[in-house]
């Protein structure tokens, strides 16, 4: 009984030591690409969280007019702002509390002589936040002298930082993808040269360049798939360890990973397969077309 015919896999010899090294390199690249993707997603989430926090809070500084004291003016402003649509919570900052906040930076010496601003913290509805202009209008309507800080300077910085992290992560990802393509291209060249005798026999049996290219494409795609799974699997293990161990809690505050982030690792091996298949096919067709393996091929 003849065994099942499976030349799709068998036309090229089984992997050798050179391909094991290639497996290793592709696995490492996939691991790094997966980490880059995870960091991009987590940093984006962190930046979004911080931005949401900042957007949901404004600080109002109230300047007392007439005989009204600072505390009374702050209390009145708080009362006015509490009635504005889109405001969730309002609190006038007690002068003592404000001093507590300033003390670490300025010290006790000058704190007694320093005029302490009368502040009101306003927490906005995160879904439908009140606009600073609406808050200002409400205060002006009741003859209050106030100014509003919506923390837009901080927000801009955070968004800029998040954008930079995203761009760096994407650049790393692209660099890794091109490095993987270059490595597969190099390995394909080496494979073609090492197996020139096999290719010559196939060619003399009437195999077209596409037929031969498909063999190399399949071989390298298969290899990249396995290596990609190993690399992305290793990245997933690292993430699971970070997520489940107490030691990394501070790390998770900076980069808040979610279990759903594991899903982003799925395309990594797929992408490795696509890059390897495309590169192997392109390089094979180019080398065969240029007749670089000899006149008989």
């Amino acid at each position, binding site marked *: 009984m003849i065994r099942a015919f499976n030349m799709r896999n068998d036309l090229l010899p089984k992997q050798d030591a050179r391909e094991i090294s290639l497996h290793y390199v592709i696995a490492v690249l996939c691991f790094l690409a997966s980490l880059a993707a995870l960091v991009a997603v987590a940093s984006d989430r962190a930046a979004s969280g911080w931005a949401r926090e900042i957007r949901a809070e404004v600080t109002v500084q109230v300047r007392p007019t007439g005989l009204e004291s600072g505390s009374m003016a702050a209390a009145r402003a708080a009362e006015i702002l509490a009635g504005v649509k889109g405001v969730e919570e309002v609190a006038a900052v007690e002068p003592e509390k404000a001093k507590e906040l300033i003390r670490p930076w300025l010290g006790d010496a000058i704190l007694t002589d320093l005029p302490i601003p009368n502040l009101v913290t306003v927490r906005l509805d995160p879904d439908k936040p009140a606009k600073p202009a609406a808050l200002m209008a409400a205060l002006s309507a009741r003859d209050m002298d106030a100014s509003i800080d919506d923390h837009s300077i901080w927000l801009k910085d955070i968004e800029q930082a998040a954008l930079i992290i995203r761009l760096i992560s994407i650049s790393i990802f692209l660099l890794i993808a091109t490095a993987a393509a270059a490595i597969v291209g190099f390995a394909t060249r080496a494979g073609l040269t090492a197996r020139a005798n096999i290719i010559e026999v196939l060619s003399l049996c009437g195999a077209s*360049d596409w037929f031969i290219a498909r063999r190399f494409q399949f071989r390298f795609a298969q290899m990249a798939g396995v290596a990609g799974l190993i690399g992305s699997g290793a990245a997933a293990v690292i993430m699971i360890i970070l997520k489940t161990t107490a030691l990394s809690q501070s790390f998770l505050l900076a980069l808040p990973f979610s279990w759903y982030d594991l899903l982003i690792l799925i395309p990594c091996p797929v992408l490795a397969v696509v890059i390897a298949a495309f590169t192997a096919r392109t390089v094979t067709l180019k080398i065969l077309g240029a007749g670089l393996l000899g006149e008989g091929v």
Partner: protein
Amino acid sequence: MPPQSPEDDIFTPDDRQVVTFRGVGLGYDAHSPHLHATGHDPENFILRDLNFDLPAGSFHFLTGPSGAGKTSLLRMIFLAQRPSVGEISLFGERINYADRAQVAQLRRRIGIVFQDFRLLDHLTVFDNAALPLFVRGEDPKRFESDVSELLTWVGLKSRLQAMPETLSGGEKQRLAIARAVVNRPTLILADEPTGNIDYAMGLRIMRLFIELNRLGATVLIATHDEGLIRASGMPVLELKDGRIHRRDLTADLEERLRGHQPEGGHP
């Protein structure tokens, strides 16, 4: 002499001829160990002014001393080597300027037996023999029994799953022949196909070539085996000093009738 281009050529292929050579020469560059289609000195030609036809369904032997250029001539026919000058047509198509896709298609109609076998060591005997069918995209289920039958015919029935490295020289030769004829090619080219097998098996292989020739295949066999040539009585193309000569068969026949013992001790 510069190579001809399609524009300045008046050669018209004849589709009744499977192979046609017109003014074909093959030279090499004095500065390179490789044969080259261009940039050579005419004195460095190993093959000169070759003019011959192989009509459809014909059977020829190609003979000549070692280094005469038999293998180079075969290589030009199976498109592994382009001529330096002249024009070659194959199956009625001019092939000097054939592109790679055309070359692949033309080679599917040619069965080649190499002197050095060129078996794929990582494939079994069965897979090696079936290679041309697989390359053509045929369904393995459909050709499995045909391939087994052919391998049985060449005496490799018990070795279907063996690897080539475990075969003797003769078995490798028979496997190479099976691979060459498995897809019933229109043209069969063989370079010393009986060089590594005993006389009885040689005759058996020759019978296979003759049978395929009867079924319509054109056969060209390069060989040194004068005994085989004389035993078959088929026409001979002889390469001498880079040129091809048709051997006078009448003289050979007279020699045979006089009871001349063929070279190599064959009866």
